[in-house]
């Protein structure tokens, strides 16, 4: 019984690792896969191989993949919502399906860059002035502002394909970064 469970787990995690669209996730899946593999070796009466797999597969190769991942170009998205006191899983989950996942899929499949998303409740203008994000999503009530650099090719592609990425979102404003600094001063 244990054997069957561990083998099915192996196949499922291997599928996750291969078919996942996010590189970071699939690296972590590969680490979990190595751990399950070590368990399977232990079950099959090969403790020497289990130790080797646990030390090398889980420890060393995961670290090596993580270091190599830094080389893949990362597209940095920041989600700003000033009205939330503190971000918790419910808030993140509520926006996850509506546009974070589609955005990740688009970046991963079409643009072939690695998306990285951070969340904050700092004022949007402060974030714009101080931090260096490739793209900033600012939610204000029902409106969503998307800030980005007009010369950025990936940002241009996102704007051009916004209808296909986020089909059911109505109130979206696109703001290029140069205009923002002017507007901020005017207000």
């Amino acid at each position, binding site marked *: 019984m244990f054997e069957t469970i561990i083998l099915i787990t192996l196949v499922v995690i291997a599928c996750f690792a*291969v078919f996942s669209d996010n590189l970071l996730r699939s690296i972590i899946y590969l680490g979990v*896969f190595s751990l399950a593999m070590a368990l399977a070796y232990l079950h099959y*009466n*090969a403790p020497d191989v289990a130790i080797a797999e646990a030390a090398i597969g889980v420890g060393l*190769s995961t670290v*090596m993949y993580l270091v190599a991942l830094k080389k893949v170009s990362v597209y940095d998205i920041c989600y700003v919502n000033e009205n939330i006191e503190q971000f918790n899983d419910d808030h993140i989950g509520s926006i996850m399906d509506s546009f974070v996942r589609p955005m990740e899929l688009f970046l991963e499949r079409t643009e072939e860059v690695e998306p990285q998303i951070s969340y904050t409740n700092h004022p949007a203008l402060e974030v714009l002035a101080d931090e260096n994000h490739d793209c900033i999503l600012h939610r204000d009530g029902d409106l969503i502002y998307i800030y980005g650099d007009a010369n950025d*090719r990936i940002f241009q592609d996102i704007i051009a394909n916004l209808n296909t990425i986020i089909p059911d979102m109505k109130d979206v404003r696109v703001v290029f970064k140069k205009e923002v600094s002017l507007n901020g001063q005017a207000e």
Partner: protein
Amino acid sequence: MKPLNLITGETVGILLFFIGLYGLMTKKTIVKTIMSMSIMQAGIYLFYITINYSPDTVPPIGQSREAAFADPVPSALMITAIVIGIGVTAIGLTMFMHYKQQHGITHWSRNRNQQGSEH
């Protein structure tokens, strides 16, 4: 009960090998390709380890001989193969980083696609 009997280490090893092969053929990220190779290797290890496995054996350590020993030959071979596998992974990742630094390539077909979209 019959389908459960089919799930043995060898069949899962073969399946893992072909899952890795699928990733190797279809994924466009170079890192993903190297990871697929790791999964293929893991399938081969599992196949070898279970090739002469029977449930009523003990690990081949000690002299007490309460039960029959498990086969130590595949274990010894696979320890060697695991260390070689980490060498292969290291070489692949180094070449990937080298390519990235020299030519900016992180995907197998990236340059062709980008030129197409820029026009």
